[in-house]
Each structure stands twice: as structure tokens, then as C-alpha cells.
């Protein structure tokens, strides 16, 4: 079995696209990044799936296509061969299907996973802006274990519907015991912001891409949020949701202190406290110091 797939996995709005841009810059030898031509493809993209199915997934029932996804990716992996590494991004939760098999994620073909986690209190406002919903609605979605992306009842999306579950379930599924556990490398978005060179260097090390410090610095410079925002202003970004005014937001760390109400903060900490403590977003003694930052 060929293990040639590198996944960049995360709950939405946790730095996944930034990481894709960084990787694209490195894989293109530090050249300028075109945001509409990132080298890391989207795993649930219909384009990827349709090319393997042989017919358009929009012509098939979604439940059938979803059930075939793992087989599709195994085929993609096999077709590429062991000499090629394939890079995909995904927001899928790592879950099993009705038979107990992992699906749509396919552990047997995965070389490594870069898993990004971000303080859910910062995810909520970012998600609200991205999906054009209120902060409360975004917090509801983050607590919903059945939350599915791209499940549009009135038209097909560019991606097939895919389960992301709740924020806590998503993080736990990728970072706790699983057949993939030894291949999942976890990084905090906050570390990527505060110490980009060390954190991105560690990411490259985890996926065995040799790179000198100058190239890493160059990639970081080429993908600063201000640069990505300026590119989006000038060229647009194909992955921007139609209802959102822009894709790239402020990307702030601890921006929630100024944007969320106390009751909203408490709800997030109540819903996700256990996982937040694990990632040092809350102190281990269980007492949240939410307004003192």
C-alpha cells in the first residue's frame, strides 16, 4: 500500500489556507504565491472526486458519493505512485462509517498529517464573518456534533457535503488515539503567528521537506496576512464564500477579548473546556481568566 498523501487538517478558520500558501511558496522554490492557484488541493473537491468516479458527482445522490470518497482517494494515491507525494487540505472530522472503517479519511495511504488547532474563542468570530452568521450562530455550529459543510439543499457546492462535527470532536478525532496517531503532527495557530519561522520549520521537518532558513523566511514574507488580503482585494479569491465580503480576515490572536460578550465566551469555554485546557487555551486548574488578557 502506498503512503504518499500529506494532509493539512483543521477545523475551519484555523490557519489551514495560510499553511497551504506557505507550503505552496516552498514547493515553488519561494516564488510569489498566487492565491487562486495553491498547490494543496481540497480533499472534498468535486473536481478531484469526479476525475476518479468517471462521471460527475453532481449527477449522483450525495450519500452515494460520500460513501465512495475513501475509495476515490485510495485510487488517487495508487495512481500517483510511491515516488509522488500528494498534498491535500481538509476540514473533515476523522470518523468511521457504518461498517466501522475509517471513511472518508483513508489512513492506509496517508504519509503524514499537519493538524492545526486554534483557540475556539478566536475561531467563533472568524467563522461568523466567513459564514455571514451571528456570533451566537457560529458558537452553536461549533457545538454541533452533526455539523456538515457544503450541504446545500438548493444547489451542488464545489465540494461534496462533509461532516466536520463540533470543534471539540474535530480536535479530539485527529489528536487522540487512531490508526493515524503516530503520523499526526499538531501545531497551534497561535504559535504559527507568534513564532512563524520555528513553527513552520517544524511543520516542514514533520513532513520531511528539507529547507533552509532563508527559504522559510521568504515564504513567511510572501504569505503575510496583509499580503494575502491585498492579493484578495486585487484578484479575488475563488474559495471566498459567496455571502462573505472577503476570505482573509484579521487573523488576530486573542481578538475575542474585544469582540465576544462574556456570556458567549462562557458558552465556548463550557462547550469546549476540556479540549481547550489540553491545548493551554484555559489554565489547567479550571478557572478561566477570560477578561484579564
Amino acid at each position, binding site marked *: 500500500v502506498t503512503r504518499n498523501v500529506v494532509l493539512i487538517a483543521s477545523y475551519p478558520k484555523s490557519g489551514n489556507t495560510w499553511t497551504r500558501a506557505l507550503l505552496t511558496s516552498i514547493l515553488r522554490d519561494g516564488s510569489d504565491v498566487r492565491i487562486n492557484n495553491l498547490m494543496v488541493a481540497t480533499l472534498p473537491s468535486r473536481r478531484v472526486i469526479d476525475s476518479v468516479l468517471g462521471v460527475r458527482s453532481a449527477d449522483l445522490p450525495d450519500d452515494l458519493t460520500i460513501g465512495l470518497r475513501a475509495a476515490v482517494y485510495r485510487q488517487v494515491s495508487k495512481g500517483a505512485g510511491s515516488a509522488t507525494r500528494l498534498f491535500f487540505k481538509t476540514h473533515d472530522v476523522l470518523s468511521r462509517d457504518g461498517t466501522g472503517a475509517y471513511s472518508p479519511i483513508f489512513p492506509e495511504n496517508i504519509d503524514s498529517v499537519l493538524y492545526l488547532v486554534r483557540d475556539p474563542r478566536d475561531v467563533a468570530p472568524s467563522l461568523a464573518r466567513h459564514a455571514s452568521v451571528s456570533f451566537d450562530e457560529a458558537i452553536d455550529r461549533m457545538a454541533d456534533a452533526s455539523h456538515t459543510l457544503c450541504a446545500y439543499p438548493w*444547489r451542488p457546492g464545489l465540494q461534496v457535503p462533509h461532516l466536520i462535527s463540533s470543534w471539540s470532536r474535530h480536535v479530539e478525532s485527529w489528536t487522540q488515539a487512531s490508526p493515524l496517531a503516530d503520523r499526526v503532527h499538531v501545531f497551534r495557530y497561535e504559535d504559527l503567528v507568534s513564532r512563524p519561522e520555528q513553527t513552520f520549520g517544524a511543520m516542514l521537518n514533520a513532513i520531511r521537506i528539507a529547507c533552509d532558513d532563508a527559504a522559510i523566511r521568504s515564504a513567511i514574507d510572501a504569505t503575510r496576512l496583509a499580503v494575502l488580503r491585498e492579493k484578495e482585494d486585487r484578484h*479575488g479569491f475563488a474559495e471566498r464564500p*459567496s455571502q462573505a465580503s472577503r476570505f482573509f480576515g484579521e487573523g488576530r490572536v486573542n481578538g475575542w477579548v474585544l469582540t465576544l460578550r462574556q456570556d458567549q465566551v462562557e458558552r465556548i469555554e463550557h462547550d469546549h473546556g476540556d479540549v481547550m485546557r489540553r491545548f493551554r487555551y484555559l489554565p489547567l486548574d479550571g478557572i478561566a481568566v477570560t477578561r484579564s488578557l
Partner: protein
Amino acid sequence: MFDEQRLGTWRIRSPFLFPELAAPGTVAGGPESDKRYPNILIAEDTSRENSGHEVVFQRDSLLTGVASDGCWSLDIPGRVRFTVRQGKEILYRVHSARAVNELDLRWWVLGPVMAACCAQRGVVALRGSAVRRGGSVIVLCGEPGVGKSALATALMELGYALISDGLVLLTVIDGEVEAISTYPWLHLWKRAAFSLDLETDEEARVCSFAAKYRFRYQPPFEKGLATRVSQIVMVQRSGGGSDQSTMRALRTARATALVQRSYAINIHFADGVWRAAGIIASCVPVRRLAVSDERQAAMLISDSAA
């Protein structure tokens, strides 16, 4: 068994009545045509399974296969298997009568299965819409749900006539690309219908698993008339950056790749049809259109056609 329904100039005999196609007895030729063998026969596959005489298919994708004699198959797990022979016969074998209904069978027959049948007949089948004005046709292609049919509707408001929506059939002869008129029905997703103030009727649903509906449009078209294609427009949603729709020409290599991506099915089994994309892209201007507003985008297309 119905007869005389037509797709382009092809007479189709089928156990299903396709609402999109001309009704039996209404097409030129009249009852006399009953005596002729149809161009395309659609029938249930009644051969015994595991009889040892079945055609052996090599998979050329996850759901499709090709036999050494050029037969093509599409196996939709748990639902139905289609076999297409020599561009003349479409056979279907239902795996589970509970999991599939006539509505879905018709949808698949007029979609990917007919595309394979066309490929065997040397005809290119693209997923998209086509409109005609005067002696030239504009073909609209793009990802599912991107708004091709809504854009076709906006073009119809400018005086264009719809010649097909769903499958666009093209012939390439002596460097001339022509579109075959198929049926004057729009297939609109519920959202597109809503935005066009069209009421959706469950009777007009085109398949059981998606919110897509059929709409009849007038004026009628000339059935089977092949018309020169003047441009192919690759439709995509505007990624922001501008609230204006924009259109730009594509170089031949890029245009070829996009035409290939617009094929309704994986068409590698029909080598000549697969390679036709290169000829199409070199004979017909292919433009990429980022749509911000359908009506403004339709004006852009109309201006470029003029």
C-alpha cells in the same frame, strides 16, 4: 415501449417517456418511422447474470468500465448498471428496485449514459448549456451549480434561443464545430429558479435526489439543426475583488484542458472524441467568464459575440 422520441435527429425507442424530448408522433416522419429500427434503443438488460457469456469490462474509472469491443458500462453501486453498445443500444440492469426509480433512470440515461452513447457515435457531449442567435451558437460550460442555466436564461432575455441545457452535443467536421439542438428545456437548481422568480413544481423534478427542475421555454427551436459554434464560455463564480463580471480569452492549451474538463464523463475510452477537445479549442474562441451578475455577464457575452 415508446417510439419516435428524438434527441437531435436520432430516433430513440425506450420504455420511458422523456418529457424533455419531442413526444411520440409529433416529429417529422410520422407513423412511418415506427417501421424503421431506432437509432438508439433503450431497454432493460434481461440477459442472465453469471451466464459466462457476459462482456468483460476493464475499469477505466471507479464507476465506469470499457470492454475490448468498445462497450461502455456505468455501475452505480446498489442502484443500476448501464451498458452502452456501439452508440446504438443502452441496456440497464436494476440492482435494487427499491433503491432506484424511473425518474433517476431517465436522469442518468439523458446525462452520463447518453454522453457515452454520443462518444461512441463520434459526438462530443459537454456538460453545459447552449444558446443560439442567428447562425451561431454560444456554449456555456462550468462546474455544477455555478450558474450556467441562469446565465442561459439571461441570454434568452436578450433574444437568444435555448438549444440545449444539461448536455451540449458538438460535432467536429473539417475544422468546423457545430452544436446539435437537443431539447428546449432548462434544468434549473431550485436556487436558480428562485432567483429568476420561477415557481418549482414537484412534477417537474428531474431526479429524486437533487433539487433540480425542468422548465419549458419558448420559442421552439429547430430540432436537429446543427449550428456553428462561435464561442465557448467557461463560467465561474467571481472570486471577489470586483463587483463587475469579467471575461478574458484563453490560450489554446488552457482552453483544451478546460474543454476536456467539461466533458460529461471520463471519455478516455473514445480516443478521437477525447482529442477533439484540442481541435475545438483551436477552432473556437474559448473565454473564461467570472460572473458577478448574470444580466451584466450576459451583456458581456452578447457584446463579445457581436
